[in-house]
């Protein structure tokens, strides 16, 4: 135990131990550069390390708060809540896992959808909550996504989706696989109405979410350093029996391979999205 830890009151020690995306303690350590940061500094910098620029994971609601104008926001699809269709049980029952995740995150499932505006440009935006069962996509995520798309179509608005997900939700079996087909089919409606569909892939975006609507966006953006791919690195390593190259499946690797349009620093994202939305909708440029 270091002298610093000995000095800390017990409450702060506990907070440090809980592996939250942004720890609630006074200080936290950047996993990339190992600098010890004031949590408040990190938060003020949108969860981006002021020392090295590492993008820490963000919860869904704080992220939406950063992106959306404060006025005129409302949530879509919150009425849709999960059920245990298969009576699924591993070491824990699925309903118990849901209750635990709901208590931990204060969310009812892993997707938050809102209608709102970015720099006065109205849109519908969906954001994955990775802290809720790894942002896994089950029936509720699929249905909320579709309701979001429907709202966008009704009001003729662009649709943006921010992903952070380990993939499909195993506890919902084939229902979760079918959400890949469901969400992607919904995207085809946006195209029919000539409404822009932008995806922002954040750390991590894997499996069923990556292999459905994530890469069929009109513009595909990624956050710096985000892990994005179909199969998880461990599965690939076990299959091919070789060590993966440095930076494999990171946003920068995907950009180089031609899989995404751009990497955008979180602190510039609001401006960038506004600019893209204006361009796609043939609107005049916003003045700074």
């Amino acid at each position, binding site marked *: 135990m270091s002298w610093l830890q000995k000095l800390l009151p017990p409450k702060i020690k506990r907070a440090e131990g809980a592996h939250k995306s942004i720890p609630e303690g006074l200080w936290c350590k950047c996993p990339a550069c190992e600098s010890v940061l004031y949590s408040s500094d990190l938060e003020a910098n949108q969860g981006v390390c002021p020392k090295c620029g590492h993008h820490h994971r963000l919860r869904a609601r704080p992220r939406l708060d950063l992106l959306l104008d404060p006025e005129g926001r409302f949530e879509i699809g919150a009425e849709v*809540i999960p059920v245990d269709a298969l009576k699924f049980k591993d070491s824990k029952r699925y309903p118990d896992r849901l209750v635990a995740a709901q208590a931990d995150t204060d969310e009812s499932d892993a997707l938050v959808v809102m209608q709102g505006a970015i720099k006065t440009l109205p849109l519908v935006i969906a954001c994955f909550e990775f802290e809720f069962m790894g942002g896994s996509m089950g029936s509720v995520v699929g249905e909320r996504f579709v309701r979001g798309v429907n709202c966008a179509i009704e009001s003729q608005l662009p649709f943006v989706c921010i992903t952070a997900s380990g993939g499909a939700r195993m506890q919902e079996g084939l229902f979760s696989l079918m959400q890949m*087909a469901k969400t992607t089919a919904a995207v085809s409606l946006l195209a029919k109405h000539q409404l822009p569909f932008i995806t922002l892939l954040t750390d991590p975006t894997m499996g069923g979410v990556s292999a459905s*609507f994530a890469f069929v966006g009109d513009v595909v953006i990624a956050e710096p350093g985000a892990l994005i791919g179909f199969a998880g690195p461990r*599965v690939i390593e076990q299959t091919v029996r070789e060590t993966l190259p440095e930076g494999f499946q990171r946003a920068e690797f995907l950009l180089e391979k031609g899989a995404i349009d751009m990497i955008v620093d979180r602190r510039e994202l609001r401006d960038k999205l506004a600019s893209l939305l204006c361009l796609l909708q043939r609107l005049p440029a916003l003045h700074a």
Partner: protein
Amino acid sequence: MKTTFLDFEQPIAELEAKIESLRFAQDDSAIDISEEIGRLDVKSQSLTKDIYAKLTPWQIAQVARHPQRPYTLDYIAHLFTDFEEMHGDRSYADDRAIVGGLARFNGQSVMVLGHQKGRDTKEKILRNFGMPRPEGYRKALRLMRLAEKFGIPVFTFVDTPGAYPGIDAEERGQSEAIGRNLLVMAELKVPLICTVIGEGGSGGALAIAVGDVLLMLQYATYSVISPEGCASILWKSQEKAGEAADAMAITATRLKTLGLIDRIVNEPLGGAHRDPRVMASALKKALQDALRMVTELSAAELVERRFERLMSYGKFKEQRVG
């Protein structure tokens, strides 16, 4: 060809071995033991019936992966004529883990495509164990678009452990390839009839399985992750694959009850590999029925119906938000 028996079929294997040795003895024996052989044959049949009546989901998964199970090309040979195999995605390569091409079904022009596994070691490697890379899905996409252009219905056959989890596959956009297929299949203007003939492994299966009718052979499986994969994540042990298979509802019967597939095509006693010809004719009849169901629909009706189907997937409840 000699039948390969699975672990849980050992009692049948022993009986069949006995029958075989009696048949061999019969050839150079003066005593007529054909009656005894006949009696044992009946016994073997009823034993098979008993065992197959009580298969667990995990045992069904073994049947779905049986090394002698008919693969896509076997069904193509039995069900279609004038098969013209087509190759390549026009961008990178020809992925042999997916086969496809134009053919005739009862004389009518159709497009057929499906995952293809290999029989012997050399072919298994050539077919990459039925695990496609992005170019495989892009070949499938190209063939589906071609079918759409000429108003030709599409039949797909699903039999894969999953899309290939390899470095090259990731580099060339495995996710994009699968996602693109889901998007295009959702609005393809020709009938799409999909059949899970063996293993329906996750996104790699779904990428050619979005359609108007979804059939499943009796002992095929369809799941979001392999039972082994699920067990190693949720139970922290691959040994628990049986429990995972049970929990995830991967069999045709469970999926039919859940409303996720349209029809189960019954297999011959002991599985499709015991009598591929009988299996093929049962499947042919099911495919004819399926095609008849959607063939009268206009392109717009077809796409609308498919879209409604896709939107109906999922189980959740609704509550008032306060």
